[in-house]
């Protein structure tokens, strides 16, 4: 009689462990997927920027430095991305990529702010479309980062909660890293808007 009870208990424990394992696997794959999605949005941003700058060039003849800063930052970011792709997992390459991304984000933010300073520019339909696309691209990059952090949070929470943390270490589930803000000195620079 006791034998059957012991067997039942062991079977229940085994099923429980399997359920926890599967749940952790699911959450881990989810956060890995969200990490890959960030790259998708970044690549889209790289592809979009030359066209947008081209469109804005005609109207922003006085803002040459801002436009050039954006182009230069994009070039640097593309280079850093290629380096990181060539050496995945290399912390120096990832750091370089994060920094280049930060610089690019700052430059684009300044370009958007510059649009605000030109009222007749804002009224032009083409430029408004350009602005909308720019803003949307930046938002998409930001939201994909946010989604990544959310999925990492779910994974870590499950991994560290009480019954699950017993098995998590056993099955080899390690903590995932949240994306911290990658503010460089460039990004922190406030955009200059002059009221001429």
């Amino acid at each position, binding site marked *: 009689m006791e034998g059957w009870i012991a067997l039942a208990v062991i079977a229940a424990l085994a099923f429980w462990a399997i359920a926890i394992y599967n749940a952790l696997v699911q959450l881990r794959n*989810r956060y890995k997927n*969200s990490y890959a*999605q960030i790259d998708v*949005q970044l690549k889209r941003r790289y592809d*979009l920027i030359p*066209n*947008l700058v*081209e*469109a804005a060039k*005609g109207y922003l003849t006085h803002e040459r430095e801002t436009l050039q800063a954006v182009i230069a930052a994009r070039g640097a970011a593309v280079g850093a991305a290629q380096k990181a792709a060539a050496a995945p997992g290399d912390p120096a390459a990832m750091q370089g990529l994060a920094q280049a991304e930060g610089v690019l984000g700052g430059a684009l933010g300044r370009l958007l702010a510059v649009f605000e300073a030109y009222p*007749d520019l*804002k*009224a*032009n*339909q*083409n430029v*408004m*479309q*350009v602005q*909308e*696309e720019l*803003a*949307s691209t930046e*938002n*998409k990059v930001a*939201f*994909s980062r*946010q*989604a990544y952090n959310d*999925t990492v949070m779910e994974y870590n929470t499950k991994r560290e909660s009480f019954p699950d943390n017993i098995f998590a270490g056993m099955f080899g589930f390690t903590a995932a890293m949240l994306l911290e803000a990658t503010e460089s000195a460039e990004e922190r620079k406030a955009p200059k808007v002059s009221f001429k």
Partner: protein
Amino acid sequence: MAAIVACVDLVAGAVYRVWAGAPAGQNFHLATSLITLAVIALGSLEIVARLSMGRGELATLLAGRPVPRSSVRDDERRLINVVDEMAIASGLAAPPLYVLNREPGINAFVAGLSPGQAVVVVTQGALEQLSRDELQAVIAHEFSHILHGDIRLNLRAVCVLQGIVFLAAIGRFMMQYYSGAGTEEGRRFFHLPLAAAGIGVFAVGSVGLLCCRIIQAAIARERENLADASAVRFTRNADALCGALARIRANSEGARLRNWHADALAHMLFAPDSGSWLRSLVATHPPIEERMRRINPHVSPDFYFEKASKPRVIEEKVKARAAEKEKPRPIVPKRLTGVAALVASIGDPGAEHLEYAAGLLAYLAPSIRQALGDPLGAQSVMLGCVLEEELTIRGRQLAAIGKAGVHADLARKAEVIAPLLRQLDRAYRLPLVALAVPALKGLDEASRHAFLDALRRVLVADQRLTLSEFVLATILDWTLGPKARRGGEVRYKACAELAAETALVLSLLAYAGSSDPAEAAAAFDKGRAALGLPALALAERDALQLSGIAKALERMSVLAPLEKQRLLEAFSTTVAADGNVKLMEHELLRAAACVLDCPMPPSVAALDPRLLRK
């Protein structure tokens, strides 16, 4: 629901006892319960059938228009971008979108049975009056409904409700029918027990309905709170959602939907219609102030109301000045606008493309503009494009037009308009085709045939077929002729089966890009690599015959669709190989895309033909 069934049992039992003078047996109660359940189930089934209509039908029921992903309207573009951003943040796929045209109120809802089938419907008032962030908050709220399965939950609740409504309706019918209804004939149907039963069932049904409604409303309110919280989580912006709610309050139309179907969908909306006091019990949404306090406890709702009462500054858009004759400015290359949009739309022009044609039309001479408006004039413009300048050749061409079975005036009109067309930049030729096609499509079968015949004769008459004439003829043939109505027939499954034809077209594109043989070879190699067919050989420049090209394109038109797309990508790789796209290459690519019935690759499609080198 069990209570309802039990009540109905009791009523039926009482009636039976009174009627038959003996207490009802076990079987009787069982039978009554089953019948009651069956009646409720019937009512539910009916509403399920009605509500599980496809998502498009639901939106069309409320007079909505679908929003295509390639839309060029600013407000729709903004909506599409906002929905895409929310899809990224929430991890859902972006659902199809509909806009309710005639609704000035601000509201939104989701329809569809499962996340995969969901659609999001937004009112036109919401598009116009909410700021970008506020619109995003509303969309996030709707997304959370999809995410948390609220659609299904509400659907079930509505089904049960309808079942009970059906029961109550039957009760009322019995009551009225068996009570004789006052007329002489009616007295025949007088039957007290059944009438009493009817009253009983009706009463039970109505009370049951009220109770169910209260329960359902309570559940719905909680789900709304959950959706609000999720919306704030996705957008990380509590202000935006409060702002949207405040704006609904400030709007004179509020969240009211004019369409009379809206009542049935009240539980699905973002905000409720302004209701009466009785609604507070059966309200499916919490009151607006309460929602705002929950979303942002630190800020009083009055702050948002005040902000919303100030009218939003709508930027004045500068319309293209049609009176000026200056050349239109270079147009944004990335999104298909203006000229690029026109070129891309060859074959199936849409209303939006014609809107953008306004800028181009303003630049054209008035006579050309006028001619493009009617079929005869459009034909004359097309023929005028290919009329030669030299007198003798032109004479032959005009005679050839006369021989074809077209309108008698056509030759003269073409001759008159030809000099004006010659003044236009070559780059405008394809946009002109795009502008002419809508009018040409107004011709009937026989006239189209005659026009294409005339075109062919004219091209033959000058005894020399240039590449650009070939492009023009191909595009018109495949857009207007019998080939335009080809079905989706597929005769070849892979590019490899059409190796010789592919080599021919790739060679043509390579030579069109550059006269230097080495560069042409390099471009050809790139295209070959893109297709993964290393066996293709660059043809001799002199050996390229346009008739052979035409046949090759025709064969390619019956290729499998995915292969066609690959083919077009390979063509555009060849074209872009040397880093710049010539006008001729762009036109050839456009002709290929027209024959293959495939959209041009966006990077090439977005190029403004006027900025390309000749």
